[in-house]
């Protein structure tokens, strides 16, 4: 039996969508027999502890601060399984009209409760799709929204590109990662009157990842490219989707950051903007170059278990 054959619990309608997507991709009859369903499971953690809204987590960052997160969502795209010859075979995602669109998916670990009140009640920890039948040994995906979808019209975009909390209106595009938290250093003295309604905002430490310095060919055209695309390619040589889970641990991203301070006159935490002293440890942990300095190594947000 093929180890990647997973019986999905899908109802007939999504299965029909699956088949329709597959048919569109391969434009041949009797396609279903050559494909197998695939579910990529994610889990969110903070320094090894499961992520939950309103939970307190100790020993975060260089000051060993205590944080209370208010959001944790991210987009992945270009999911592919790697076969025994090393070839990356794209996973065709189920078009569910909610979490997945084209080849991108939104993972959502906040449930709208407590300090996550600007989030949504729904959560999503899986990417669902299909691949050609075969044996696969590895996994690859991109953290981020593909360029072709990142600079469209946000007022008419379909789900999951229609959530205002994930729009990155000033820079254009989307927040590839949205993590917001209060910290022991940034929720008391620094909180403004009326703040504390949710993580981030006027105080707190955020990690918002997105493309920056996106230039257009002409002043009034949409960007043609971005100097800092800030997408992260994630690769695991040995990965078995049937038994393993991709773990996103935000604690690893914050390990070398000081979450108790914010560089004056910069966005709270690191929001990818250039010239923010809070960004180098965060961007480095994501495996991204920043401010002309190359990444110190590969990304540390994702591991597998």
């Amino acid at each position: 039996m093929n180890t990647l054959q997973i019986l999905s619990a899908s109802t007939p309608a999504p299965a029909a969508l699956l088949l329709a997507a597959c048919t569109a991709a391969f434009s041949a009859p009797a396609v279903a027999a050559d494909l197998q369903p695939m579910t990529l499971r994610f889990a969110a953690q903070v320094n090894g502890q499961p992520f939950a809204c309103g939970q307190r987590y100790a020993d975060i960052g260089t000051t060993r601060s205590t944080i209370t997160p208010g959001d944790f969502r991210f987009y992945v795209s270009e999911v592919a399984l790697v076969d025994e010859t090393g070839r990356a075979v794209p996973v065709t995602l189920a078009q569910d009209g909610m979490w997945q669109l084209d080849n991108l998916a939104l993972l959502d670990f906040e449930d709208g409760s407590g300090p996550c009140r600007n989030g949504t009640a729904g959560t999503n920890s899986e990417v669902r799709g299909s691949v050609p039948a075969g044996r696969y040994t590895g996994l690859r995906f991109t953290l981020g929204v593909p360029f072709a979808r990142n600079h469209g019209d946000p007022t008419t975009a379909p789900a999951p590109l229609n959530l205002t909390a994930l729009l990155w209106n000033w820079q254009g595009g989307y927040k590839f990662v949205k993590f917001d938290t209060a910290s022991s250093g940034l929720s008391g003295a620094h909180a403004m009157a009326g703040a504390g309604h949710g993580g981030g905002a006027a105080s707190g430490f955020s990690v918002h990842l997105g493309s920056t310095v996106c230039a257009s060919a002409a002043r009034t055209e949409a960007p043609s490219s971005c100097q800092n695309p800030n997408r992260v390619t994630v690769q695991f040589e040995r990965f078995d989707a049937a038994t393993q889970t991709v773990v996103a641990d935000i604690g690893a991203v914050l390990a070398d950051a000081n979450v108790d301070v914010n560089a004056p006159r910069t966005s709270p935490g690191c929001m990818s903007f250039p010239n923010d002293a809070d960004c180098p440890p965060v961007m480095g942990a994501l495996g991204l170059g920043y401010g002309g300095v190359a990444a110190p190594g590969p990304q540390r947000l994702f591991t597998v278990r």
Partner: protein
Amino acid sequence: MLARLALAAGSVLLLGASGAAWQWPLPAWVPPPVVPTDNPMSIDKVELGRHLFHDPRLSRDGSLSCAGCHDPARAFTDGRAVSPGVTGETGSRSAMSLANVAYLPVLTWQNPQLTSLEVQALIPLFGEHPVEMGMAGREQALFAMLQGDPVYRRLFARAFPDEARRGDEALYALSTLTKALATFQRSLLSFDSPWDRYRYGGQPGAISSAARRGEDLFFGEKLECYHCHGGLAFTDNQQHARSPFAETGFHNTGLYDEDGQGAYPAAAPGIVEFTGDPRDAGRFRTPTLRNVAVTAPYMHDGSVATLREVLRMHYAPAGRSALQGRGPNPLRSEFIAGFEITEDEIDDVVAFLEALTDERFLRNPAHANPWSAARVGPR
């Protein structure tokens, strides 16, 4: 191109059947603005947009409407250098006048990417840095509020009959919300100042002799104001129905020089934030000078209090940063050369600028708040 225009004309006729057709209230010498083909003007959309614009329920705590920073009596500015949002956090740039915003191909002080008025509305509504109206993540609650208000049910259905036929999810959405706000803003037209009547309206006595002398200085080669502050709205950012392409202008006027190499403060660095080109440090979009006498304080961060100071303390010395003693900003525009100017000449230029105030625009009932405090809460 012609096919798309024909399509737009066709859809306007269709809309005319269910909603009153829009007429531009413009003098004959002003060409109409360009309107996106997917958001044609209509009286019903303008009326819906006016209600939304003045409604503080579009903010997280019900305290802040668009009009809270864009007050019609101040040509849609707010008299502050920078403004607080619902959490008290302030931005780093001043609320801009919305008079004639329909003619601007690019929006806000330093964002060359922001070319859509519809998309711009998302920033104050849903932005998180800074938090302005604080609605990030709260759009479903916002749509529920709109849907639950009989005034909005009537206005949305009239403004968007196609979407109404498709159901409430299509009718109460980011798309219709931003289209209505943009349409209202496009109706904010200001071309009836004393100077307009003097220059185009056949009324040579409409402005004072001081203002006429100021006009000569403004359009002359000593001050060179008109190089950037020329055009229909006294800004070199302009597009209209008779122009073949959009014109944009971003300039460094030498207001700051933080490092001796031309840089501006990091919180508002200029369009370099988007282009990455160090020569774009300190480049900001030229604002309109129409109604400038009521839109103090001045510059992108409101750091110059009066028009006299703009002339004496900023443009005359080739940029305020030159007063630091290190010489003028090396990245400044070639038009910022500095000049000698007497107090009498400053009086004259200020008289000219005051003649650009369109009093009827400031008091136009078509732009006013339609709500009572009892209805939407105090502002």
